[in-house]
């Protein structure tokens, strides 16, 4: 019970901090629109109007990942600037329970991205949002966000130990978009990369969103997404102790 409480409070606090950051929300909510616009142009030019919804949802999820990857890295670095990283590490609560809700909160701010992108698609390009399985859709959204948050957690972990990891975070933007089939189907990618794609939780989250909107086995996708996310979490937590010890040894918790 206490664990759940810590996670819930942590999530709330960091979501609040994120929401009060005009920069984060500004970029987070507008960047997906850029991707969406590009995708719309290209898909329309190619004559695939039904895939415009795909582009819409995909850009939003892509935006959520950018938020998680870039901002999770930024968040750790910001905690260093703010002087709060040491306080978080120095708390008796296991650091995993601090980092995990933080990463998920950051991904959750992507809800703004989802809203603005879908709205943009509707208003500017007239793309409707059919909801074949509305309930599944509503469930798929937080599940996808959580699964992306967990990936962000893994990234944040490396950042506590390695100060330069934020740059790696930035360059993971496009790779995950590609591998998760966010803006184009996996069929376009070389066959050898498919196992990698299928091992990424966001891939299944994306499928869940698509299938619940257009029809398909959304609940199966949701289940697999959750399962993978749980696996990453367990793996991440197991590694975290090692990372923390290393961070303490190499004095990377503070700015200098």
């Amino acid at each position: 019970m206490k664990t759940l409480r810590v996670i819930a409070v942590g999530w709330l606090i960091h979501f609040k901090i994120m929401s009060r950051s005009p920069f984060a929300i500004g970029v987070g909510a507008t960047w997906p629109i850029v991707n969406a616009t590009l995708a719309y142009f290209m898909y329309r030019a190619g004559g695939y109007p039904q895939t415009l919804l795909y582009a819409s949802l995909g850009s939003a999820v892509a935006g959520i990942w950018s938020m998680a990857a870039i901002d999770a890295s930024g968040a750790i670095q910001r905690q260093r600037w703010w002087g709060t990283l040491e306080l978080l590490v120095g708390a008796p609560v296991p650091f995993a329970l601090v980092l995990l809700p933080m990463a998920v909160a950051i991904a959750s701010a992507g809800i703004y991205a989802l809203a603005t992108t879908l709205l943009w698609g509707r208003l500017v390009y007239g793309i409707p949002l059919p909801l074949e399985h509305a309930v599944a859709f509503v469930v798929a959204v937080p599940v996808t966000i959580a699964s992306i948050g967990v990936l962000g957690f893994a990234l944040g972990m490396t950042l506590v130990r390695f100060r330069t990891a934020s740059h790696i975070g930035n360059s993971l933007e496009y790779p995950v978009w590609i591998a998760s089939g966010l803006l184009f189907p996996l069929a376009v990618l070389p066959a050898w990369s498919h196992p990698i794609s299928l091992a990424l939780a966001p891939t299944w989250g994306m499928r869940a969103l698509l299938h619940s909107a257009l029809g398909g086995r959304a609940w199966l996708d949701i289940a697999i997404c959750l399962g993978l996310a749980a696996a990453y979490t367990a793996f991440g937590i197991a590694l975290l102790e090692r990372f923390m010890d290393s961070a303490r040894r190499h004095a990377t918790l503070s700015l200098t």
Partner: protein
Amino acid sequence: MTNLRIFFVGGLISYRALFNWLNPWIFVPTLVVGPIFQVLFFAYLGRAAGVESDRFYVIGNALQLAALPGLFAMTFTITGERYSQTLGPLLASPANRAVLFLGRALPVSANAAAVCVIAFVGGAVLLHVTLPAASLPALAVVIAATAVSCTGFGFLGGAIGLRIRDAIVLINLLDAALLIFCGVNIPLESLPDWMRAVGEALPVTHGLAAAREIADGATLGDVSHLLLAELAVGAAYAAVGYALLRYLEQAARRNASLETA
């Protein structure tokens, strides 16, 4: 002589201090991995949409990536100085402004050209895109010109960064603008007139057009007007950026509005 020292030494040290590019952990992800994946992303998107060819996206994105160091490095130059609190002392120094900032521009341009080439080569190899060998020297010239022009564009970002705290937001928007308006991923002919007009006023557009023509067999002479246009655009932005810088500096002295802290 002093100016030359400021130009080279000052430029290199500040660049290294901020972008830390000699650290492979930063250099490789930001300037190699990220760019190559950008090329791949749009190439695959193009395949899925059935629009244009792999070659189209490789050339387009590689050239657009020349703006990456220009935009971000120049802004980081300013904001980084602010964070390390050296901006105040820097502006208070008697060093010639033009030489100081031009000094920083040199490594940035070199960096921009390098990123462009890396993205080009990476994308071409991974997507099996070939270019006629004869066109490569001309292409190199185009890349150099675009790199310089993008660095000039970055001057504007630097000047803006002097005034606005979260200039990075604006810089991201500029980066996005380049992706949309310059014919990088959407052919210029397919863009509505107003968007094409915006593209004409941005860097990369002309350089990219030149690169595409060269890839199709044109010579350097055929595209010289495009190259000149590209350099002119870059110079214009550099001039505006520099003027803005001086103006803001003077204004700040009058009413302490410079974000030096």
